[in-house]
């Protein structure tokens, strides 16, 4: 099916009548030429010399760079299916698309942005066609946010079935999420609506409203401009907006473990972490060692920790589109080099379903929907997943039972194996020859942790379970894994009041992550906050008294020396 024709047909069908207003805005030859110079320096490496989205870096990027020849742009002020305005293009370039490889370009001037926009327009003939002229929609300013509006929005969310793609709790884990593709046939990740800092069009309420109104062209995200009143769209906006803690992820550096008096028991986790403070750490791709992962599924991991006299417990939570609990995983699985990898260039989420057709299907322009059918068919057949979980994990049934995958989801926490000397740490990617790390690995298809000692990512050694224990559960788009280990038993020693480096790794089986192909964090710190209330008065009184004492001493000595009637001993001066 010809995409371009579809777009045109859509435009005609919608009868926007845009051609009646405005004029073509294509810039002068000089402006486009200046735009070309900028484009060749800053843009061509991803978007390609001819604007077809096939630049040098394209194969390693997900989402793939925009193909400008299509004229399809996600973030616009124009109605669904329409071309963006010059101002829209300038805004996209200036702000970039968060959590994609399109960065913001604040360093470009208004003039430069205009020139670039004109040059981009030249790639798609439709921009020069008066029939496709599009006017920006009149997007209203947001009314004040209210909880009631967000409440009503939550009902709208359920009513119109947003959850089918975005998930019941909006974590990007809807039933159809794994099957979605964009207009180019590439797999596309549904937005995780609980992280508005990752929204491509921006985190503000007016940005969210715009997405409902204008749709994201080229993606399955439709427009609700026709089917939903402005008021309802604001309610939905308020609901989505209220799902995130802020515009900013507020990443942390330190995990503070609280001391508790209750027993730590993995069979009884209710309220165990209530007193603990949550830390949120950014997850990025492991692109430093061979077997690189350029686009990990996870962008962050939430962690809490508590400890008592005997044990430490650490809880990790992260959102995942689907739990992969079939197949297996390991920190030491071989990953081919990117160049030799048959999967290379595959988008995140092109999980190859065993027995399904060759992956090329997903890429072929014509065959967009056939792959999708395979997914669904597969999903009906597979129902034995529950076996992995046993009866006690019945609450995990909320997880969509995905098709069999070769690789399961997995997670690991990493600590230095030995007491650190000074500031020296082991290498943050699975340690090094001189300083090994303990890797608390857990294959989430197995429900059993395994400890590895790492002396570099190609030198891992399994140590079995040791004193380590862990449980995992998956609920509506979120993994929760809790590890416990005695404070001092086998490997790293946890000490009250001290800092310890700590790092995390996440593997998404759907994304075929295994071994070195994974998401990871840098070294962060675990701090075991001393128990008991910290007194403030004690140190303050001490400091005040000590200072007073020193003062009295000095004044006393000076007076004795200079005041005993020997006025002349003081050097006379202007004072």
């Amino acid at each position: 099916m010809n995409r371009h024709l579809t777009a045109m047909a859509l435009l005609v069908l919608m009868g926007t009548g845009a051609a009646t207003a405005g004029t073509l805005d294509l810039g002068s030859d000089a402006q486009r030429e200046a735009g070309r110079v900028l484009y060749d320096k800053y843009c061509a490496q991803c978007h390609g010399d001819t604007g077809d989205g096939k630049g040098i870096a394209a194969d390693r990027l997900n989402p793939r760079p925009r193909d400008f020849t299509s004229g399809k742009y996600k973030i616009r002020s124009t109605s669904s299916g329409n071309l963006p305005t010059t101002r829209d293009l300038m805004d996209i370039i200036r702000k970039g698309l968060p959590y994609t490889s399109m960065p913001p370009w604040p360093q470009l001037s208004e003039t430069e942005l205009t020139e670039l926009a004109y040059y981009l327009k030249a790639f798609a003939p439709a921009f020069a066609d008066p029939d496709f002229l599009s006017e920006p929609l009149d997007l209203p300013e947001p009314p004040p946010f209210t909880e009631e509006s967000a409440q009503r929005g939550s009902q709208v969310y359920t009513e119109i079935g947003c959850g089918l793609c975005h998930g019941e709790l909006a974590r990007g884990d809807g039933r159809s999420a794994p099957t979605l593709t964009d207009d180019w046939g590439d797999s596309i990740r549904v937005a995780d609506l609980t992280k508005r800092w990752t929204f491509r069009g921006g985190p503000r309420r007016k940005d969210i409203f715009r997405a409902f109104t204008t749709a994201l062209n080229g993606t399955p995200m439709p427009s609700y401009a026709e089917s939903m009143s402005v008021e309802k769209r604001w309610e939905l906006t308020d609901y989505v907006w209220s799902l995130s803690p802020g515009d900013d992820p507020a990443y942390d550096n330190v995990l503070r473990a609280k001391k508790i008096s209750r027993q730590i028991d993995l069979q009884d986790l209710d309220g165990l972490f209530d007193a603990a403070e949550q830390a949120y750490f950014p997850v990025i791709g492991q692109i430093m060692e061979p077997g690189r992962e350029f686009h990990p599924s996870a962008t962050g991991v939430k962690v809490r920790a508590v400890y008592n006299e005997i044990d430490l417990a650490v809880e990790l939570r992260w959102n995942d589109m689907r739990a992969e609990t079939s197949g297996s995983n390991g920190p030491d699985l071989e990953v081919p080099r990117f160049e030799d990898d048959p999967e290379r260039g595959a988008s995140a989420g092109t999980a190859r379903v065993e027995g399904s057709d060759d992956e090329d299907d997903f890429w072929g322009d014509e065959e967009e929907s056939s792959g999708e059918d395979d997914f669904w068919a597969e999903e009906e057949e597979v129902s034995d997943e529950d076996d992995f979980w046993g009866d006690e994990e019945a609450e995990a049934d909320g997880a969509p039972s995905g098709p069999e995958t070769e690789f399961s989801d997995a997670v690991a926490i990493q600590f230095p194996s030995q007491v650190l000397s000074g500031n020296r740490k082991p290498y943050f990617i699975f340690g090094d020859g001189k300083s090994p790390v303990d890797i608390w690995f857990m294959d989430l298809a197995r429900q059993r942790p395994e400890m590895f000692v790492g002396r570099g990512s190609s030198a891992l050694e399994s140590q079995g379970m040791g004193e380590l224990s862990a449980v995992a559960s998956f609920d509506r788009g979120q993994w929760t894994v809790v590890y416990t280990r005695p404070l001092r038993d086998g490997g790293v020693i946890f000490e009250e009041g001290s800092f310890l480096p700590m790092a995390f790794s996440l593997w998404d089986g759907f994304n075929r992550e295994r071994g070195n192909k994974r998401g990871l964090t840098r070294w962060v710190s675990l701090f075991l906050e001393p128990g008991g209330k910290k007194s403030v008065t004690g140190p303050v009184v001490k400091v005040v008294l000590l200072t007073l004492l020193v003062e009295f001493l000095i004044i006393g000595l000076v007076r004795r020396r200079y005041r005993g009637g020997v006025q002349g001993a003081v050097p006379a001066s202007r004072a």
Partner: protein
Amino acid sequence: MNLWVVLPVLAVMALLRLLKVGLLTWVLVWWGALYIGMRYGLAAPAPQSVITLYMSIVTLSLAAYVGSSRERTEGVLGPMIRLMSEKRYTPLLVAIALLIPGLAGYNAYLAAGLREEPPYFSRTVHPAPPPQITVGEREVDLIRSVNPYRELEESDPQAFEEHARAGREVYYENCFYCHGDALGGDGMFAHGLDPLPSDFTDAGVLPNFQESFFFWRVAKGGPGLPAEGGPWDSAMPRWEQFLDEDEMWDVLIFLYDFTDRTPREVGEFVNE
């Protein structure tokens, strides 16, 4: 530099110069001005440990200056002694004697409310390279080596272009995830890293080093840093695992070409 802080401080000091205040005042003013400059005057805030170190040097220097002659010593000690021994200053003395412990106590109160922070590691950002490294089979002399393709810039500009182009490919296949599309050290993964990736647009980076320095940094990456550089935290890969020597020299050509900078010449700091 934060001019809104630095300029008022300088203005106050100029004013005091006109008022011809005593040496004691000057000592206090210098100490305070340097502290304010360090604490609030720098665009990128300096860590507390660095400020403490710097201020102790300042204190020692001021003490050395004051102690360097009898006149100066008396200029500073005289007013203090009179304050403590003469009856007419008693109210002022009492006020000061109460103010100091008050401030110290307040400081202790603030410190008690602060949360413990992880131990600070003062990393050397550009540690000295070893004299030579082995890349593949070849020994590379880091003191005298130049980029083998640098001379083409003069002798064969077209061939030079080719190397810059090849370097560009290497960069956008491998480097921009961290170092950014426009080389600003702000790539899509930079937010997850500490230390942050190098910003090649910074005037203090590319022009300040010989190309062989960066060749070392590229080939050996974070793990090749000496201990003072914090090799365990750096996410710079050992590119010798992925790239051949030519590709590494090419990407350096690209870095300088894109930012329009020139490397430091060999021998500028090397005594033959």
